[in-house]
């Protein structure tokens, strides 16, 4: 019995209709394509009226197949499948045609675009006739969650889930959670002390009964899929027994080896070989840095071991691999600071009184290397003038094209701190001022009133080559003041470079482990930049915080909470429906050649030694179809992407081409004879 097709061509306002003659396509489809019972065009198919139209037609016209020619299936496939389901037509008997992203939006030639639209509609129509009803497979959602990254976004996500009663494994690569926020002095625009607002959350995480905190650990491997991931975590050896350690700190006090702390103190302060990154670290269990420890270097010392009152030093400790099962993963891996030495004209690393933004944060911080005093590199002289240079590495075609979102506000913050703590003049050299969130513009006004100087111009050079006697001993900032229209040389004592935020160096690698990708700039790709910024293309893997793109603390907190909410939703439902796009092997026809066995990266094909046939483990199959294409006997079928469907789609797409052979294989039509039928029936 022939199928009964309904074809719906969407105008999408003028998005499609502006270039593709949608009425003509609908009219043509109704008269040209076989088995089409209903062919309509409509302004907005995704609207409730549009969906109702489909549902009504299914009922009244007894449609057995539906084709919706509209936008990308990545946007509305679910919408139209749901409409079909509401009308009791199996959702997998619906096919979308991408007339917008792939057709109307990429062409200005109306004739050509309409012709292309027709071909794409024909392809879908031919394909859908061969589609079969399928049922999504329910998978139980493991209520445990893995959060990777213990910065503010990761902490927020963890607390939301833990407070809701679900267990969270929080993995953090450094010895303590807190992230970059722990390094800051104050936060804009409220000028709250950063540590004061962060540490309560850190404590909560550390003490929460629903949180397993795995610091000094890395995510090694991820396998499985949404609802049931298996992850491997490498817990690096701290050389301290966590159960025995009380955090008393005697080991750190007595350790004879002091080294420059390049991480937390940004190279301005010191730490010991055995250390916690900062006093409020969570957990308060120190770590021995193998690279600087005397024992690991030449087998002497062991002072920490001798002096520890609870015998918590364990110099023979080894890395441990921990295997966990979780339902979802939230990546909140944050960022690293751009290396300003890549812009040598600003003197970073060469001229002593040029500081990076992170160094300056540490200077301002009361618990920092100068106890909060803003001083020059000599550690004692207060500057009389400070220059703050915006956009170092950001908005720069040679480095990062993007804007790092927070530096303008951070520059204002620094300006305020300089004015508050010193008698110095402070200058901001900016391209644009971007205080665009709640309270930010007001903060900018405040700094204008406080007397901060603003020069609109990207600085050309910071140099100590003086030309006039008054410049001796100063750093000269050479800039074109674009509002005055003049070159200026401004002598200052201290320069602060607002370096860009950049993705972590191994962000891409980590993303690939989880099956997600990065944008060209290196930030994780969200499912939809406007409407779905915390989900990714891979179900069950979420992103939150700066790893998705530069943003400030409130936005990171929001994303952490949003990702947690998503996960909570899935846990509350208890099961998640997996697309039934899986492979299956016709065991009667399988000859046991086992070519397919080694093609599957998910080990989803097993070999039955007794029956001597291969079999797909449906729960592990991800539906890529490689085995389907590889089977020499053609006995593997890929559900919803089987050979017959794709060949029909090809035939439909080439409806207006001239077949080259008189006896062209049946693509556009049903097979004419049994032999061809059996040849096509497999796959």
């Amino acid at each position: 019995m022939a199928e009964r097709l309904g074809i719906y061509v969407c105008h999408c306002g003028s998005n499609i209709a502006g270039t593709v003659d949608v009425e003509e396509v609908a009219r043509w489809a109704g008269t040209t394509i076989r088995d089409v019972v209903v062919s309509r065009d409509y302004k907005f198919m995704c609207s409730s009226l549009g969906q109702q139209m489909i549902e009504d037609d299914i009922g009244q016209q007894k449609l057995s197949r539906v084709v919706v020619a509209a936008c990308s299936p990545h946007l509305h496939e679910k919408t139209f499948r749901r409409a079909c389901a509401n009308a009791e037509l199996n959702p997998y008997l619906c096919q979308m045609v991408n007339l917008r992203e792939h057709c109307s939006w990429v062409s200005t030639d109306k004739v050509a675009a309409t012709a292309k639209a027709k071909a794409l509609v024909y392809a879908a129509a031919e394909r859908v006739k061969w589609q079969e009803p399928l049922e999504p497979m329910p998978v139980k959602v493991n209520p445990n969650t893995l959060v990777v990254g213990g910065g503010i976004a990761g902490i927020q996500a963890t607390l939301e889930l833990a407070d809701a009663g679900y267990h969270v494994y929080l993995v953090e690569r450094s010895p303590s959670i807190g992230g970059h926020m722990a390094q800051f002095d104050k936060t804009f625009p409220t000028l709250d002390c950063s540590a004061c607002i962060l540490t309560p959350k850190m404590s909560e995480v550390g003490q929460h009964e629903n949180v397993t905190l795995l610091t000094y650990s890395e995510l090694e491997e991820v396998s499985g899929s949404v609802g049931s991931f298996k992850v491997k975590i490498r817990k690096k050896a701290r050389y301290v027994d966590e159960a025995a350690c009380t955090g008393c700190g005697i080991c750190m006090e007595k350790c004879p080896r002091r080294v420059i702390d390049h991480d937390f103190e940004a190279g301005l302060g010191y730490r010991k070989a055995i250390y916690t990154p900062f006093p409020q670290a969570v957990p308060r269990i120190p770590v021995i840095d193998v690279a600087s420890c005397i024992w690991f270097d030449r087998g002497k010392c062991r002072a920490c071991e001798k002096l520890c009152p609870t015998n918590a030093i364990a110099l023979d400790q080894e890395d441990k691999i921990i295997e966990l099962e979780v339902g979802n993963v939230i990546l909140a891996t944050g960022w690293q600071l751009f290396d300003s030495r890549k812009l040598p004209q600003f003197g970073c690393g060469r001229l002593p009184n040029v500081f990076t933004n992170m160094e300056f944060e540490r200077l301002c911080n009361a618990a920092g290397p100068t106890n909060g005093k803003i001083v020059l590199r000599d550690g004692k002289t207060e500057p009389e003038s400070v220059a703050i240079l915006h956009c170092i590495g950001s908005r720069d075609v040679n480095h990062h094209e993007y804007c790092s979102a927070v530096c303008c506000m951070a520059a204002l913050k620094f300006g305020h701190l300089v004015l508050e703590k010193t008698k110095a003049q402070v200058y901001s050299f900016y391209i644009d001022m971007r205080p665009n969130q709640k309270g930010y513009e007001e903060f900018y006004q405040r700094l204008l009133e406080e007397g901060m100087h603003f020069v609109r111009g990207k600085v050309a050079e910071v140099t100590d080559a003086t030309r006039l006697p008054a410049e001796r001993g100063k750093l000269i900032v050479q800039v074109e003041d674009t509002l005055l229209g003049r070159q200026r040389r401004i002598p200052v004592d201290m320069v602060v470079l607002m370096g860009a935020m950049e993705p972590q160096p191994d962000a891409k690698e980590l993303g690939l482990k989880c099956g997600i990708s990065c944008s060209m700039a290196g930030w994780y790709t969200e499912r939809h930049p406007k409407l779905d910024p915390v989900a990714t293309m891979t179900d069950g893997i979420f992103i939150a915080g700066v790893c998705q793109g530069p943003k400030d603390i409130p936005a990171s907190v929001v994303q952490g909470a949003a990702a947690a909410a998503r996960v909570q939703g899935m846990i509350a439902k208890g099961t998640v429906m997996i697309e039934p796009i899986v492979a299956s092997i016709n065991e009667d026809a399988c000859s046991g050649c086992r070519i397919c066995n080694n093609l599957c990266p998910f080990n989803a094909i097993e070999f039955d030694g007794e029956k001597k046939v291969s079999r797909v483990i449906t729960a592990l199959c991800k539906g890529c179809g490689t085995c389907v294409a590889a089977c020499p006997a053609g006995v593997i079928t890929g559900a919803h992407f089987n050979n017959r469907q794709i060949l029909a789609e090809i035939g439909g797409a080439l409806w207006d081409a001239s077949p080259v052979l008189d006896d062209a294989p049946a693509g556009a039509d049903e097979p004419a004879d049994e032999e061809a039928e059996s040849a096509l029936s497999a796959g």
Partner: protein
Amino acid sequence: MSDNPTFEPKILGFCCNWCSYRAADLAGTARIKYPTNVRIIRVMCSGRIDPTFVLNAFALGADAVMIAGCHPGECHYVDQNYKAMRRYGMLKHTLRQMGIEEGRFRLVWASAAEGQQLAEAITQMVDEVRKLGPLAWAANWQENGQRLEALEAIVHEHAEAMEVLA
């Protein structure tokens, strides 16, 4: 060479759901303009592409075929695009035997962020195929009677390829 000034090739494109299909979506969202000659068929992975799909496409009148997938090392299904690469190599070989010119079959890598690059690759390919002209190889064979010879050559070459040299 094409002597038909208004010839517009019909090209079939296979895009993998995760990278290249999304790259094509991105090209659309960014309103990047490229020729309409490529008709895209979605598969979950470039590894799904059975060589018979490509051969069928040519047989049904496609002037060229493009396969687009994730960059090596970035396949959503780990390394299935390498299988696509292998099949591509084998197919190129076969198609050459049938007299199908180099420019008519192309493999392109495009990550989900590379809408611009995919659009450029499509534009280049369309230009090249336009210059090559319509695919009419069977007509050619029938004209100069080389069809049987060409078919025999394929069989012979594959037999040689299967020989294991000591």
